[in-house]
């Protein structure tokens, strides 16, 4: 990069034409950059998925949908700001959007609880899904959470039951469900919103049964840089890994180096993927959808014997 800068400076100082040289160098730079990003380690990808400047759900929603109108509350305990739900339009069609929302700074994160939902969040989401079903509108869920919140109140109010209930109910919802993992797919906390007909995942998003940190402290008995790296690699948590395992249906390209480098482009590509998948899903009858959804999860996993 410094070579390109020097060349440009020299050329402008002396009035020389160095376009050809420049092009060559820039092409080489692009190649190198592409190679670097292709060879990122799994833990480096985890860091991109958690990048402070990565676009969050609302950043995507405002770039992708029209007519967004948020609704609140589980009608039983409180509104959980870690998850946002509302009607929106994609290509003119109404959809129910349910999204986990991270904060951009400390104040926002206190409000959003770092996108770690409580049971009432899962119950709010389920209420909205039932409403979408009632009005025959498809559901788009946007996943970005470190996990469901592990706290006293969450346990008192049945975190496990709330997630389990969503898994059961989402397997029976009679409208298309499309899930997009845009950042962190943190274990059961992500799963509770992502039982879907199609799951798409942004290139540098991750989806894992446990965080590399958690896995390192349990299996390796210590959470160090080395054990975290090993755990991240062992868990097979990157988007390409999940595609290979048959858990997700599509990997959505990101701007070079990650979505944080260009939110607009990232949103445009994601929008395209959402539109195409939804178009395909809305063609199907409710009973076809439910049968296919059941069969899809029924086949997941690997074992020997019959």
């Amino acid at each position, binding site marked *: 990069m410094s070579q390109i800068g020097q060349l440009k400076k020299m050329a402008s100082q002396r009035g020389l034409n160095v376009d050809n040289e420049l092009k060559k160098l820039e092409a080489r730079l692009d190649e190198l950059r592409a190679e670097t990003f292709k060879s990122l380690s799994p833990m480096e990808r985890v860091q991109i998925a958690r990048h402070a400047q990565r676009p969050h759900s609302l950043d995507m929603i405002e770039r992708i949908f029209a007519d967004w109108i948020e609704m609140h509350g589980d009608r039983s305990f409180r509104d959980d700001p870690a998850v946002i739900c509302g009607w929106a339009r994609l290509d003119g069609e109404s959809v129910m959007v349910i999204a986990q929302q991270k904060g951009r700074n400390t104040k926002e994160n206190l409000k959003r609880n770092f996108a770690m939902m409580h049971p009432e969040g899962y119950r709010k989401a389920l209420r909205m899904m039932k409403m979408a079903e009632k009005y025959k509108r498809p559901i788009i869920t946007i996943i970005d959470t470190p996990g469901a919140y*592990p706290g006293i109140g969450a346990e008192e109010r049945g975190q496990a039951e709330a997630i389990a209930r969503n898994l*059961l109910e989402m397997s029976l919802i009679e409208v298309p469900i499309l899930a997009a993992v845009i950042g962190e797919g943190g274990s*059961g906390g992500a799963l509770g919103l992502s039982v879907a007909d199609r799951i798409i995942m942004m290139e540098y998003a991750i989806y894992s049964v446990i965080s590399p940190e958690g896995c390192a402290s349990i299996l390796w008995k210590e959470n160090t840089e080395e054990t975290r790296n090993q755990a991240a690699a062992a868990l097979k948590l990157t988007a390409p890994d999940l595609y290979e395992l048959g858990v997700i249906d599509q990997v959505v390209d990101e701007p070079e180096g990650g979505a944080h480098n260009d939110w607009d482009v990232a949103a445009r590509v994601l929008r395209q993927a959402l539109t195409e998948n939804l178009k395909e899903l809305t063609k199907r009858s409710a009973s076809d959808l439910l049968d296919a959804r059941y069969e899809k*999860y029924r086949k997941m*996993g690997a*074992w*020997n014997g019959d």
Partner: protein
Amino acid sequence: MAWFRKEKKRLTKQKRELPPDVWAKCDSCGEIIYREKLADNFFTCPKCDHHFRIGPDDYAQLLLDDGLEEEFDADLRSVDPLNFVGPTRYADRYEKAIRKNGRKEAVVTGSGRIDDLNVKFGVMDFGFIGGSMGSVVGEKIARVAERALDEENPLIIVSASGGARMMEGVLSLMQMVKTSAALGRLHKSSVPYISLLTHPTTGGVTASFAMLGDVIIAEPGALIGFAGPRVIEQTIRQELPEGFQRSEFLLEHGMVDMVVPRPELKPTISKLLQHMVG
């Protein structure tokens, strides 16, 4: 001084040499119990009612008229789908668990009878890699739920688990959906599903089939929760209240229907089933 200490050591050693197949020591109150008497007492301590950890065979004997009359899918085996390399290889740990437990996975499923009513039955084995749910556990639970639906037999599942089996990565997570979806079909029918939670039931098993029973029963004093107590303590940086995440706590918060001591389990389940389908 030296020979005093030596003497002491020999005494403790002698104590430990109580034949363990004849005597058992209560983990809770330290009472020494004659093993035969322990079985007669439903594997609970006669002094403090502590419920000893028991395995699938004991639960089958305790809850079913004639034990497990047919076992399903006993030969399903895990295949290490991620080729998981941790401090130990998953494949090695799995083989070791099979040698230790004499069975191939952390759940046993099959059929039997409760007061002459045919039921489908599943019971988890905490001794098998912490009762963790990988592909095989998920598959066996889904299959037994499907059989219950096909044959219209009530389903009873006894849970004991540390959660999803992380060595199978996201595939183990997907078993939560698989089992819940199978139970979803059961829920739409009028075939009962009774879930019995034993010590401990946490993580991905709690957050799927364990909490989805029409009726949920917990054994006394069992640890039941989504997150483990240590994780919660680390997150909120304060000590947890006494009795937190225990069966009685869940009953108080409306998360289970009843806390039932082991001797009462079979009569309770039978009574419930009589109301539901008898």
